[in-house]
């Protein structure tokens, strides 16, 4: 808890994902989660990565030609009985670049997209055991939403 903060991040550009980014994203996600899931990412590219979509966003951060982060989300209308709002489904940055503002840059970019789409609230859902991502969203000013996630073991 007393470790010194790392040095500032190299400049990264945030832009819409391209098919050529996918290998880098798959590798980045595997480095974070320990699981390589190419089918999942190809499906996301198909569903969220097509240019021209008004409500779906799949953005990458690129530094020195390398994918160093991603964020995915969309505007959902009346989901869970709520007025339209932006949902962030996934965000990740290269582990070596943490605490350098890259996640903030990605979240700011997707929030700008949500605002352009006409919504004024952004939500997300994270595992309460994932302290890293929970702390990140908290540091961005996010507070508990008025929901309680529930689940049931199906026998």
């Amino acid at each position: 808890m007393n470790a010194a903060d790392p040095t500032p991040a190299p400049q990264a550009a945030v832009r819409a994902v391209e098919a050529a980014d996918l290998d880098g994203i798959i590798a980045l996600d595997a480095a974070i989660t320990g699981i390589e899931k190419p089918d999942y990412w190809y499906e996301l590219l198909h569903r969220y990565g097509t240019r021209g979509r008004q409500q779906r966003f799949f953005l990458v951060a690129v530094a020195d030609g390398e994918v160093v982060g991603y964020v995915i989300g969309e505007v959902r209308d009346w989901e869970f009985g709520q007025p339209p709002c932006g949902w962030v489904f996934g965000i990740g940055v290269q582990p070596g670049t943490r605490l350098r503002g890259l996640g903030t840059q990605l979240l700011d970019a997707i929030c700008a997209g949500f605002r352009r789409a006409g919504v004024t609230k952004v939500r997300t859902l994270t595992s309460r055991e994932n302290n890293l991502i929970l702390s990140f969203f908290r540091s961005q000013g996010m507070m508990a939403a008025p929901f309680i996630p529930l689940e049931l073991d199906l026998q």
Partner: protein
Amino acid sequence: MKLQKATELALYSILEFAANPTAQVSAAEIAEKYGVSPHHLAKVLRDLGRAGLVESTRGVGGGYRFTGNAKRLTLFDVIELFEALAPEAASQHLPTPGERALARVTSEIDEIAKATFSSITVDTMLKLIAREERAERDLAVARA
């Protein structure tokens, strides 16, 4: 959930020191601001000092200084110095189904509290405080 008075004092003190990282803040200032006895506060500050989160300087102009890392230190790190927030004993060892069922519900609440406290750093709290201060100023302007 209600935190013990000593825990709340520890959190307020840490936030006061972290908000002024280069300044020496006196215990008397904090005791007066939060309406507590300097004696009670001194004990809390001693515990924070032992944990390496603050250091004190004696003499004229002396006081306390934050020595932790605001971006790493969480509310839970401070809270667990003063009280036990660990989940209760495993519910399956309780004798009746009613006790086991109630223990599952209270354990769910404890886990949510722990996750919340563990995810909020001192730095995040300082941003929240700044937001509250801005809202207070805006309200004052609107009322004027």
